C-alpha cells in the first residue's frame, strides 16, 4: 500500500461545507436502532463543541425507504424532500445535515436531478405548493452528519479521554471502516475522499489513534439494501453479503468496525449472531463478535461518555471486550437499567456468540 497515493486522492476529494449553523434531520432507522447515536451527535456538536444545530419537530422521513422499495414514485420522494428543505428555510437555515446515508443519497440525487432537469424542479415546486402550501427552497450546503464529525475530528481529539489504543499493549486498535453505499458511490465528489478510498471514517480513526484496516472486500455492501432484507426470499442474499465481508476481514483480526450508515451497523452486528447460529463461527476472539459501532458512538467513547448512555447495550455483539481494551470504565450492573434507573432485566442471550 502506497499511502501517498491515497493521500493524493483524499486531497482531491475535499468538499466545501461550513462548520456551523445546520438544520439537522434524523434517520428513521437510526433513531429506532441506535437512539444514543443521534443524541450523542447533538450533544457533542452543541455542548462539547458549541455549534448551532437546529432540529425541527415537524420534519419527517425523507421517503427513501419507500422510494428504494419502489412503493412511491420519484416525484413523491422529491416532494417530501422539498418539504424538508422548506422547513429548513422557514427555520432560517441554509445548511442542511442529515443523519441517514440513504437520506443523504436521496437529497444528493434530488438536488442533482433538479440541477440537470430544471423543468422537473418546477413541477416539484408546484407539487410542494399544492400539497403543503410551502415555499420552495434549496439548501446552500448539504452535509451528512459524519462529514461534520470528520470536520470536527481534531476538535474531538483535543477532548479525547480514551484514544483508539489497546491500553494493555499500547498498540493502536485495528479498525475496519465501513461506508454506506449511498454516501459517495453514486456521487463520488459529494463524499470526503471520493468513492473508492473514502476518507470520512478513515480520518476519524487516524485522528483518534486507531489503525485502519484495508481488506479486499472493503468496498462491498453490508448486504442491507431495502429490497434485500425486507423481502423474506432475499434475506439469505443480505446475510451472505455480510458473511463475505467478515470472511475477508477475519485474517486482519480487527478490534472494531466503524460505520456511517443506519443499516450497516445493524446488519454487521445482527448477522454476526445469525452466522454464529448457523455455522458456529464467530469473528472476534474467544467466542465474541467484532463490535460494529456508529461514528457517533465511537466519538462518544473516545470522549469519555458512559457506554450505557451511548446505548451500546443495543448491540448484539458484546461491547465489553472493546471497553476493556480501551480501558473505559463501565458498570456491568447498569447495562440493562432504563433511563429512570430501573432494572429492565437481562434479555435472553444466545450461546453461540458471547453477549457479555
Amino acid at each position, binding site marked *: *500500500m*502506497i499511502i*501517498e*497515493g*491515497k493521500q*493524493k*486522492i483524499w486531497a482531491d476529494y475535499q468538499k466545501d461545507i461550513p462548520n456551523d449553523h445546520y438544520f439537522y434531520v434524523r434517520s428513521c432507522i437510526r433513531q429506532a436502532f441506535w437512539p444514543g447515536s443521534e443524541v450523542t451527535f447533538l450533544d457533542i456538536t452543541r455542548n462539547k463543541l458549541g455549534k448551532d444545530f437546529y432540529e425541527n419537530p415537524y420534519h419527517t422521513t425523507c421517503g427513501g425507504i419507500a422510494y428504494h422499495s419502489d412503493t412511491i414514485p420519484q416525484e413523491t420522494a422529491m416532494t417530501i424532500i422539498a418539504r424538508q428543505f422548506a422547513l429548513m428555510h422557514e427555520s432560517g437555515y441554509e445548511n442542511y445535515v442529515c443523519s441517514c446515508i440513504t437520506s443523504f443519497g436521496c437529497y444528493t440525487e434530488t438536488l442533482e436531478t433538479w440541477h440537470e432537469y430544471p423543468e422537473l424542479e418546477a413541477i416539484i415546486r408546484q407539487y410542494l405548493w399544492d400539497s403543503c402550501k410551502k415555499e420552495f427552497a434549496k439548501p446552500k450546503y448539504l452535509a451528512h452528519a459524519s462529514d461534520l464529525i470528520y470536520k470536527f475530528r481534531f476538535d474531538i481529539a483535543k477532548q479525547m479521554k480514551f484514544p483508539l489504543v489497546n491500553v494493555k499493549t499500547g498498540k493502536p486498535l485495528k479498525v475496519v471502516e465501513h461506508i454506506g453505499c449511498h454516501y459517495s458511490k453514486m456521487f463520488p465528489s459529494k463524499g470526503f475522499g*471520493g*468513492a*473508492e*478510498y473514502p476518507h470520512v471514517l478513515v480520518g476519524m480513526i487516524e485522528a483518534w489513534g486507531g489503525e485502519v484496516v*484495508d*481488506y*479486499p*472486500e*472493503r*468496498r462491498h455492501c453490508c448486504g442491507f439494501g431495502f429490497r434485500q432484507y425486507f423481502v423474506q426470499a432475499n434475506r439469505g442474499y443480505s446475510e451472505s453479503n455480510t458473511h463475505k465481508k467478515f470472511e475477508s476481514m477475519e*485474517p*486482519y483480526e480487527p478490534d472494531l468496525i466503524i460505520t456511517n450508515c443506519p443499516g450497516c451497523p445493524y446488519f454487521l452486528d445482527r448477522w454476526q449472531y445469525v452466522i454464529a447460529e448457523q455455522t458456529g463461527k464467530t469473528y472476534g476472539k474467544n467466542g465474541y463478535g467484532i463490535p460494529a459501532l456508529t461514528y457517533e458512538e465511537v466519538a462518544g467513547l473516545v470522549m469519555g461518555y458512559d457506554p450505557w448512555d451511548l446505548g451500546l447495550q443495543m448491540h448484539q455483539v458484546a461491547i465489553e471486550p472493546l471497553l476493556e481494551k480501551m480501558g473505559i470504565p463501565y458498570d456491568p450492573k447498569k447495562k440493562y437499567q432504563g433511563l429512570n434507573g430501573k432494572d429492565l432485566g437481562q434479555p435472553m442471550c444466545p450461546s453461540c456468540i458471547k453477549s457479555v
Partner: protein
Amino acid sequence: MKENILIIGGGAAGMEAATQLHKMGLNPIIVEKSEALGGHIAQWDRLFPAFHPAKDVVEQMLDNVKDIKTYLNTEVTDIQRNNDGFHAVLSNNETIDAKAVILATGFDVFKAERKQEYGYGIYNNVITSVELEEFFRTGKDERINHPKKIGFVHCVGARDVKVCNTYCSKVCCTTALKQACEIKEVFPDAEVYTFYMDLRMFGLGYEDLYLKSQKDFDVKCVRGRVCEVSEDMDGKIVIKAEDTLFGKPLKMTLDLLVLMCSMEKNKSIDAIQQKLGIANNSDGFMQNKDMYLGMNDTAQEGVFVAGACTAPKSLPDTIGEARSVAVEVYNYLNK
C-alpha cells in the same frame, strides 16, 4: 526554394515528416519540448507484432533527421498568422517564420490514477504498460519480482464513459498480447491472464501474434473488464471481473497487474492549437478536415496534422501519415 516548415513535435510523426520534407528540398524545423527526439517510441523496447526492436526504427529515424534544424527542450509559446505564413515565438525567445505548420504533437498516456478502482499509485503491484515496457528495456523495476500470476487489463482509459473516453485506443490489445508473451519469456513459470473487452487484432501479423500468445505462451484471455482491485494481507493484488463468456464473476489473486493505458490527446499543445484555430473532434483529439482525403488538413489553411494528435494510431499508421503530410505540405506550397 528553401521554405521553412515548422513541425511541432519530434516524435515518430514529426521526424518522419521532417525527413520527407527535407528530401523534397524544403527546410523543416522541429520544435520538441522534451530533451530528446523520438517521442514515446524511444521509450519502447520491442514493437508488435513481430517483436522488432524499437531502437532500430528510432535510430534510423534519428539518423534521417541529423541534418535538420531541431530545437530541444523548447516549446512554441506564441504563434501568429502573417501575410507570408506563420510567425512563431519559442520558449527560448527565438522566433521562426514558417510557410506552414505541422502539428505532430502525438498523444499523452492515460493517467492510470484516474481509474481509481484499479489502485494505481496505491497498490504496489499495479503498474502500467509503459512501465512494463520500461522494465523490458532496462530490466529494472523493483515491483516486478518473479511474479507467479500476472494480469493485464485492457481498455484502461478507453471505451469507458466513466473516464470520458469513449473511443478505442487501437494499439493496446496488440500491445497487451505482445507484452504478455514477453513477460512469459522472462518468467516462463508465470500464469498470464489478459482481461479484454474485444480483442481487436486488426493488422497484418496481429492475429498470428494472438495465436502465438495462446499456443506458444499459454496466455489466458478472459473476456471481461476488471472492475475492482484490492490488496490482500500479503500485499498481493485481488481482482474481480466477470468472465462474460462464462457468465460468472471471477476472483483472482495476482502478483502483478498491468494496466494497458490508452492514448489521450496531448494537452500541452492546447494553447497553441487554440491560437491556430483548430478544434477538437468528438474523441478530444485534433479535428482534421476529413477522415478520408483530408486527414492531414485542418480547418486552417497552412496548418497540417500528422500522427496520433488526431486519433490513437500505431507506428506504421503514424509513419504513413507523416509521409502523406509531407506531400500535402509540398503541394500546398506549390499551389
